[in-house]
C-alpha cells in the first residue's frame, strides 16, 4: 500500500477535517504536481474514499437512508416546481411501453405477482433469520500464531487477530508455528499448539480436536450444557477448569491443571474417569483409563485483573508532564484504560506495572513466566524497553509529594528522576526482551520474563517491585492497555508455569 508523501498527507488530513476552500486549493496545487504518479493518485483517491466510507458507517447524516431522504426531498421540490413528477414520467413513458409491448394487461395478475413476491420475501426472511441464528459467531481469535489457517465453507485463508469464528470452522496451525489463542463465547479460552487441527462445533460438543494439542481454560458451564471436547479416542467433559488435551495417532492424553475433567473413552464400552487437578490420564484401545500424577508437566497460573476474582494488578504512568506545577514530580496517571508511554521533546511518560498476591502452592517452582500485553501502536519500530524495578514504589501515595517522576513514595525518591538509574532504580544487567508490537489496532505481544525474578516475586512478595516500560528514542510513543481496560481481554496478564515438588497436588 502506497502512503502519501508527508506534506500531501498533512494537507489532505487538514482538508478532510473540514478544511477551508484555501486548504483544498493548496491540496489541488500539490496534487497537480504529482498528477503523473499513479501510485500517489491511487493512495489519494483511496484515502478520500475511505473518509467517505467512514462517514457512511459512523455518521448518521451520511448514511444511505439519509442520502435517500435527501434525494426524495429534492425530488419533491422538483415536483412542486414542475407538477407531479411521477405522473409526468408515467405519461411520458406510456407510449414507449406500448412500443415495447410490456404493458401489464392483467391487474389481477399483478396483484397475484405481488402476493407471491410477498410470500417469497416472508419465506426468505424466515429463512434468513433461521440461517443467521445458526450462523451466529461462537468466539474469536485473540492472538494468532504464525502460519495458522482457517477453513470455512471449503475455502481456506490465513487467520488474523480478532477474527470471528463460526460453527464448523476448522483451524490448522503449521509445524513449528507459535500457538494461537482462541476465546469462545462459552467463557472458554484455549491455546492451540503447533501442528494442530481443531474444529469448532455448536452441537453436543464444543470442539473437535483432530490432531495436536490444546491448552484449555473453561469457566463455569451450565449443567445442562457441558463443555465437551471430542477427540478420535475420547470425549473430555469439562467440569469447570484448566486442562490440556493432546492427540496422537492412537491415544488422547489429558492433563488437568485445575479442578476436574471427565474423560470418556470411545473404547471399552465408554468407560469414563473423572481426572483431578495435578493428574493426567490417557484414552487408548484396550487400556482402562487410569489417572496418574503429573510428573514434570508444568502447571499454569494466569493472573489478570478481574479474572477469577484476581485483583492484584497495579499499573500507572509517571511523567514529566505538568512538572512545572508539581515541583518537578509530574502528573502521575492512575486507573486509566490505556497509558501513553512516550519520549517526546516536551515530556516523557513511563509505565510501572506490578502483579501482587501471586498465590501459588507451597514449594512451587517457576519454570517460565510470560507477560501478555496489548498495545495500540500507530508506528513501526518503537524503541520500547522493559526493565525490572529494584526499589519499592507506592501506588497509594497519590499526593503531590507522592509517587511520581521524582518520588517513589512520600519521603522516598528514585535514585534518578523517572526511575532512570540502571543500578539502583532498576535491576542491573537484566533487561526484558520485548517483541515489536504490530502497527496499529490492538496488537498483542507475549513478553518472556526471567523465571528467577518471578520466583522472587512469588517467594518474597516484599521484593516484588514489578517492571517498568519506557521509550528510549526521542519522538517515539505507544499506548499500552492497562489493568483498568474496559475489555477484560485487553488487560495485561502474567502467565506463570510452575512445577510442584513430588507429593503435592495442584490446588491453586
Amino acid at each position, binding site marked *: 500500500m502506497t502512503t502519501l508523501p508527508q506534506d500531501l498527507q498533512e494537507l489532505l488530513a487538514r482538508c478532510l477535517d473540514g478544511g477551508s476552500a484555501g486548504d483544498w486549493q493548496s491540496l489541488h496545487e500539490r496534487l497537480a504536481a504529482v498528477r503523473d504518479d499513479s501510485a500517489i493518485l491511487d493512495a489519494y483517491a483511496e484515502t478520500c474514499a475511505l473518509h467517505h466510507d467512514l462517514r457512511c458507517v459512523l455518521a448518521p447524516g451520511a448514511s444511505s437512508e439519509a442520502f435517500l431522504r435527501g434525494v426524495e426531498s*429534492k425530488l419533491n421540490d422538483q415536483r412542486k416546481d414542475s407538477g407531479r413528477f411521477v405522473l409526468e414520467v408515467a405519461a411520458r413513458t406510456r407510449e414507449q411501453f406500448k412500443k415495447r409491448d410490456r404493458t401489464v394487461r392483467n391487474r389481477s395478475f399483478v396483484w397475484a405477482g405481488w402476493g407471491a413476491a410477498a410470500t417469497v420475501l416472508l419465506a426468505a426472511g424466515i429463512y434468513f433469520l433461521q440461517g443467521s441464528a445458526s450462523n451466529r459467531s461462537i468466539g474469536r481469535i485473540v492472538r494468532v500464531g504464525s502460519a495458522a489457517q482457517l477453513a470455512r465453507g471449503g475455502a481456506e*485463508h490465513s487467520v488474523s487477530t480478532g477474527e470471528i469464528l463460526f460453527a464448523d470452522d476448522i483451524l490448522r496451525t503449521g509445524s513449528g508455528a507459535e500457538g494461537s489463542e482462541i476465546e469462545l463465547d462459552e467463557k472458554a479460552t484455549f491455546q492451540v499448539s503447533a501442528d494442530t487441527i481443531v474444529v469448532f462445533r455448536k452441537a453436543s460438543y464444543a470442539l473437535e480436536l483432530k490432531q495436536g494439542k490444546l491448552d484449555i481454560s473453561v469457566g463455569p458451564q451450565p449443567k445442562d450444557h457441558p463443555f465437551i471436547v471430542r477427540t478420535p479416542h475420547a470425549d473430555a467433559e469439562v467440569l469447570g477448569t484448566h486442562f490440556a488435551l493432546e492427540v496422537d495417532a492412537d491415544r488422547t492424553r489429558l492433563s488437568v491443571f485445575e479442578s476436574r475433567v471427565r474423560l470418556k473413552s470411545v473404547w471399552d464400552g465408554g468407560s469414563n474417569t473423572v481426572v483431578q487437578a495435578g493428574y493426567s490420564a490417557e484414552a487408548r484401545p484396550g487400556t482402562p483409563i487410569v489417572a496418574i500424577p503429573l510428573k514434570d508437566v508444568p502447571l499454569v497460573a494466569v493472573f489478570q485483573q478481574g479474572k477469577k476474582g484476581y485483583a492484584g494488578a497495579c499499573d500507572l504512568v509517571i511523567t514529566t508532564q505538568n512538572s512545572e506545577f508539581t515541583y518537578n514530580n509530574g502528573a502521575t496517571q492512575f486507573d486509566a484504560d490505556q497509558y501513553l508511554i512516550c519520549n517526546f521533546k516536551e515530556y516523557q511518560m513511563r509505565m510501572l506495572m506490578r502483579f501482587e498476591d501471586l498465590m501459588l502452592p507451597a514449594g512451587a517452582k517457576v519454570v517460565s513466566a510470560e507477560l501478555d500485553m496489548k498495545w495500540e501502536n*500507530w508506528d513501526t519500530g518503537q524503541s520500547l524497553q522493559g526493565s525490572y524495578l529494584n526499589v519499592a514504589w507506592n501506588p497509594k501515595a497519590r499526593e503531590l509529594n507522592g509517587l511520581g517522576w521524582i518520588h517513589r513514595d512520600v519521603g522516598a525518591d528514585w535514585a534518578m528522576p523517572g526511575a532512570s538509574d540502571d543500578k539502583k532504580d532498576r535491576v542491573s544487567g537484566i533487561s526484558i526482551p520485548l517483541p515489536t508490537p504490530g502497527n496499529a489496532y490492538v496488537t498483542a505481544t507475549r513478553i518472556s520474563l526471567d523465571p528467577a525474578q518471578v520466583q522472587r516475586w512469588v517467594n518474597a512478595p516484599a521484593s516484588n517491585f514489578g517492571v517498568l516500560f519506557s521509550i528510549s528514542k526521542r519522538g517515539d510513543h505507544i499506548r499500552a492497555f492497562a489493568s483498568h481496560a474496559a475489555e477484560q481481554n485487553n488487560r495485561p496478564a502474567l502467565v506463570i508455569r510452575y512445577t510442584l515438588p513430588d507429593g503435592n497436588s495442584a490446588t491453586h
Partner: protein
Amino acid sequence: MADDVLLRAQGGDRSAITAIVQEHQRAVRSYLSRLAPDASTADDLAQEVFLEAFQVLERIDPQRDLRNYLLGIARNRARMAWRKQYSRREISGDELFNALESRASVENLATNDDRLEHLRACLARLGPKALEIFQLHYNDELRCEEVAERLNMTAGSIRSVLTRGRDALRNCIEARAGGAATQ
C-alpha cells in the same frame, strides 16, 4: 435483459425509484468521493446524478446497464465541478480530473458493499481510544481541535491518530479484500 426496476420506475412506481437510489447510491457516492474536487461536494454531486437521471427517466433504455449510465452522469458532473472551480486559475481542473479519473476503476465499485463490511470489521479492531477519536470526529462531527479539547490531547495528536488510523484501516481493508478474493 431489461431492468425490471427501471421499467417499473418508468411506469410511475415510486417504490421503484426509491429502489434505484438504494441499489446504486453506494457505487455512485464512492465513485464521486474519489473524483469530486472536495469531500463535502461528493454527496451533493451524487444526489444531482440521481435527479438528472430521473428527469430523463423515460429516455433510459432498460436494456442498458443502469449503474454504468449513472456513473457516466457522475463522471460528467465531477468534470464540470472541477472546471467550474478552476475555470480562471493556474491549476487545470481538466488535467486534475483526467488524472484522477484514469485511476478510478469502475470495476472496483462492484465490491463496494464488501468494502463497508470490511471497514466495519476493521473499525472493531481499533483500540478504544482510537475508536473514540474516530467516533467523535465522524459521528459527532467534531473538528480535531474540539476532539482534542474533549480528550485533553493536542489537535496534532488527534490529526495524527486519524491519519495513521485511516492508513491502518486502508491496510486492513486491503488485507481483508485480498483474503476474500483468494477464497
